[in-house]
């Protein structure tokens, strides 16, 4: 299990497989500096919770069929407000979670269209 600490002091304990979807965290795990949990100074608890929700769903093999996953993604992204979306983009960029970044950027692009 890996412990993530948000900028506002919340801690989240998640399975390694879930956390490894973030390339940033994956590198930290490789470099073996996750002893006392990983502090994420750029991400608040609220946003981190959303990210973990996304990553849990997208853990390989656990998400269901591709179609179902797409529907879930659509639900996920359409139910968040603009400021959460904005922060999610920054966090997905910081944590280097490509699929989440694609999803959020595409959402903004669709909103502009």
């Amino acid at each position, binding site marked *: 299990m890996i412990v993530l600490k948000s*900028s506002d002091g919340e801690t989240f304990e998640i399975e390694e497989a879930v956390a490894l979807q973030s390339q940033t965290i994956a590198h930290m795990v490789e470099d073996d500096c996750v002893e006392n949990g990983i502090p994420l100074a750029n991400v*608040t608890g609220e946003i981190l919770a959303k990210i973990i929700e996304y990553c849990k769903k997208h853990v390989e093999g656990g998400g269901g069929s591709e179609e179902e996953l797409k529907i879930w993604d659509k639900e996920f992204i359409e139910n968040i407000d*603009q*400021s959460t979306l*904005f*922060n999610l*983009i*920054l966090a997905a*960029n910081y944590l280097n979670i490509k699929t989440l*970044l694609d999803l959020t*950027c*595409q959402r*903004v*692009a*669709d*909103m*502009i*269209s």
Partner: protein
Amino acid sequence: MPLSRSLLSRRLSSISFRDQGGAETTTESKTESREMSGSWSSMLPELLTEIIRRVEDTEDQWPQRRDVVTCACVSKKWREITQEIVTSPCNFGKITFPSCLKLAGPRDFSNQCLIKRNKKTSTFYLYLALTPSFTDKGKFLLAARRFRTGAYTEYIISLDADDFSQGSNAYVGKLRSDFLGTNFTVYDSQPPHNGAKPSNGKSSRRFASKQISPQVPAGNFEVGHVSYKFNLLKSRGPRRMVSTLRCASPSPSPSSSSSADQKPLDVTKMMKKLNKDGSGFTILKNKAPRWHEQLQCWCLNFHGRVTVASVKNFQLVATIDQSQPSGKGDEETVLLQFGKVGDDTFTMDYRQPLSAFQAFALCLTSFGTKLACE
């Protein structure tokens, strides 16, 4: 969920207003506003690029492409990024901003346009065709009006269909013909390269004082010539058209910088300014039609884009083309095709190295009487 331009700006700026409001009060709110870290308009450039690139990808054609223009209106940063994306090589030839009208057209296919003529007002309207139909409206690009003054005729080309004054911001360029209507000069309102001097003329001096930014030289800059030649055959044969244009080379090749490689041509002032900025000349001539014995007429294959026979119809190919690696034009590829499809409706298909503005100017030369040619 479509967002109109004002709605988008208002929504995005409302986030920044919340920032400022939060920072005024307690420390807790200060932290919160710091965490908001600025509004959409100051988002990280690479993330903005991701977002705007996606908008650009999906909104390929007009009228949806308006959304790309909207992105450029949000803030300075958005504008920079949008312009970078729009002018990148993979988006070559797509028309987004008015400035795209002076950039070269697509490389591998032609942009299809329509020209509508209003005989009463001597005005011509250029539209980007949005559907294959000749009767659909299309996206308005440029308008031109013919003015006959004394010994010559001018077509003023403008971004605004109601404003043809050379001093306005909408002024794009003009076409001037001699009395016979066989020799034309194309003028651009903007300098084709650094250090270009405007041609002398009463009009340049007149509207220089109305300029908003004095740093940009006002005036008309010669960027091309078109001439129609005598038809030597007695029968009503097609006229010969030759055009020399300064085209911005989409991918300037270093090998074309030596003037010694150029074919010797008729002397024009432009020859001496060749390649100072990597833009060279393109020489175009019209593709000769073939005489069809059975139909007893001259035929050119317009691929369905021209449906009414007219002496105005033409296809231009390049003999000298700086966008080609050798500088020599491929005399088969039709770079500009113009032809009649209705009483006052014409199609115009153009591609690199011609820009929409140049193509329009070339087509305008086909209107009007050619006293010595027919």
